[in-house]
């Protein structure tokens, strides 16, 4: 299945002209579901969600030993979790990282999760990207 998704402007960044590649995603943890819009980040080694989203999914992240990570801005503490996800018709499992102390909206899919599941072609000159999910037998 292929999708063409147009980049979205972000509140607070309208004057900068910055547009972001965003993708709708539904996370599933046992019976809990949560749908949101994630940033597709080729610079992110792995995906992250906020503790607010993790709580909504009833992920007991406080019981998972914390690890340390780093980004361009700062270091952070995270708790890795295995979770299921769905993007339109494509379902897959992935390891996400629940990061402490970040903004509630933060949900990023990165190279170890989304980019392993799909061919993603950024077309910056058209302000859009194409995503084609791999088929697994």
């Amino acid at each position, binding site marked *: *299945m*292929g*999708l*063409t*998704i*147009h980049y*979205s*402007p*972000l*509140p*607070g*960044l*309208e004057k*900068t002209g*910055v547009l*972001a590649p*965003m993708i*709708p995603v*539904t996370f599933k943890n046992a019976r809990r579901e*949560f*749908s*949101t*819009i994630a*940033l597709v980040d080729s*610079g992110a080694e792995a995906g992250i969600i906020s503790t*607010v989203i993790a709580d*909504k999914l009833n992920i007991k992240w406080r019981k998972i030993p914390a690890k340390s990570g780093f980004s*361009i*801005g700062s270091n952070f503490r995270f708790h890795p979790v295995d979770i299921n996800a769905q993007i*339109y018709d494509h379902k897959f499992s992935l390891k996400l990282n629940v990061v402490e102390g970040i*903004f*509630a*909206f*933060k949900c990023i899919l990165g190279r170890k999760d989304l980019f392993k599941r799909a061919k993603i072609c950024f077309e910056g000159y058209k302000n859009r990207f*194409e995503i084609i999910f791999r088929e697994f037998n």
Partner: protein
Amino acid sequence: MKQVKINIVKLLKGQKPGWVGISPDFKKILVWGKTLDEATQKAEKFKEKIYYFPAGESYSNFVGIIDYGINNTL
């Protein structure tokens, strides 16, 4: 190939701070709540999938921006 257009600025324009529930075609806000729990409770009456996103936030730290300034050059 299916085309998807999401304009978060347009969707969230004029929204009070809190959480919104966005329709699956990303064209309208179906619910608003001061908290995520409030928004999800209000969304229970809808059968379609609802995408949740916070309103009233600045998303400037979502993506990396380098501001070189007017007088700076690379």
